[in-house]
């Protein structure tokens, strides 16, 4: 299994080489210079077009809970890549890496999702910048 994850990481890196030169609404909506990396519990998943959204409750050092919203790929694109709506469920503990919304809100693109057991998926769109 370790080998598979190693190869998976290589695949993500390879994808990123493509995506960095690609573009879509990502550039209009997110700031590629402001990476976001949080760990928390999935609160809600909107399996909707044009991009899925999922929300993660993150517990800060003060104990306060902050909800982050992440935008992923379009449902059809994810399904065609083998990611169905039941891959990401409320209650799951996840680490999410993406890039913050340009308006500075607690929203971000949601490229990489890592589950508590180490499994990692790229949930972004083809045009999204992939976190390194």
């Amino acid at each position, binding site marked *: 299994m370790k080998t*598979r*994850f190693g*190869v*998976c990481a*290589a*695949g*993500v890196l*390879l*994808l990123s080489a*493509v*995506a960095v*030169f*690609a*573009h*879509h*609404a990502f*550039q*209009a*909506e*997110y700031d590629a210079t402001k990476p976001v990396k949080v760990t928390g519990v999935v*609160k*809600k998943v*909107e399996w*909707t*077009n*044009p*991009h899925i*959204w999922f*929300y993660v409750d993150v517990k800060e050092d003060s104990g306060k809970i902050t*909800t982050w*919203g992440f*935008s992923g790929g*379009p*449902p*059809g*694109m994810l*399904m*065609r*890549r*083998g*990611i*169905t709506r*039941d*891959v990401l*469920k409320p209650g799951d503990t996840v680490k999410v890496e993406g890039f913050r*919304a*340009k*308006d500075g*809100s*607690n*929203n971000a693109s949601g490229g990489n999702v890592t589950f508590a057991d180490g*499994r990692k*998926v*790229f949930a972004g*769109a*083809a*045009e999204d910048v992939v976190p390194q």
Partner: protein
Amino acid sequence: MRKSSLSVLLWLDVFVIMTASAWGQAVPTRQSIPRTADGKPDFTGVWAGPGFTHRVGPNDTDTPRVSNFDPKNFAPFKAGGEALFMQKETGEVLHDDPTAKCLPDGFPREALAPYATQILQHPGVVIFLYEYMHFFRVVPTDGRPHPKDVEPTFMGDSVAHWEGDTLVIDTMGLREWTLDATTRPAIRYHSDALHVIERIQYTDPMTASYQITIDDPKIFTRAWSQDFGMKLHPSWKLYEQVCEENNRCEDGKCTAADAQK
């Protein structure tokens, strides 16, 4: 279910760095090029166009990617043409990326989108159904010319003819719009004089070559071409793609969701 889905994804990542032949055994295939009753090649089916890697994985998967035109293929610019083509960012999203506001990507950018395309072929007509934004093109193949006084549109007016086994599509009547998805260092626009020629030809029973020729006399000194590929995916169907449904981050302004209130 969740485990199997993740497994598919993991294998997808594997397949990104492997050759298609190593993982393609499960994909339905065929031995010869299908033809319609009149003997023409039949492109009917759901295809992954230029916006995919064309490395077929388990369960007929493919990897979407954003394709753009390569500057190495560009013809020299006419005087003033580069300024029309490479337009500087203005900070106004309607200019910098109209699709972020769910406006059409238009042709030929639609053909490069990382979404599937379904082709339906009937005597005298080829129909393209594009998954991205639900666009379509109904292209006569009966030899008729473009109509006179074409009103410029996002998708233009297309007519086609056959040159042997190659389907040749001629498109004009396109309004000035973004040529592809490139925004850095500038947004690429084509003019309202753009004339596009597509040439589609089977290279084997499951793949086709797809050449796009850009003839934009207001921008370039001559026409130039780029070669892409198309891969047939027998198990695919078109998914619904609705830009307006939950486009919550327009213009970089991310509306607060119920979950955050």
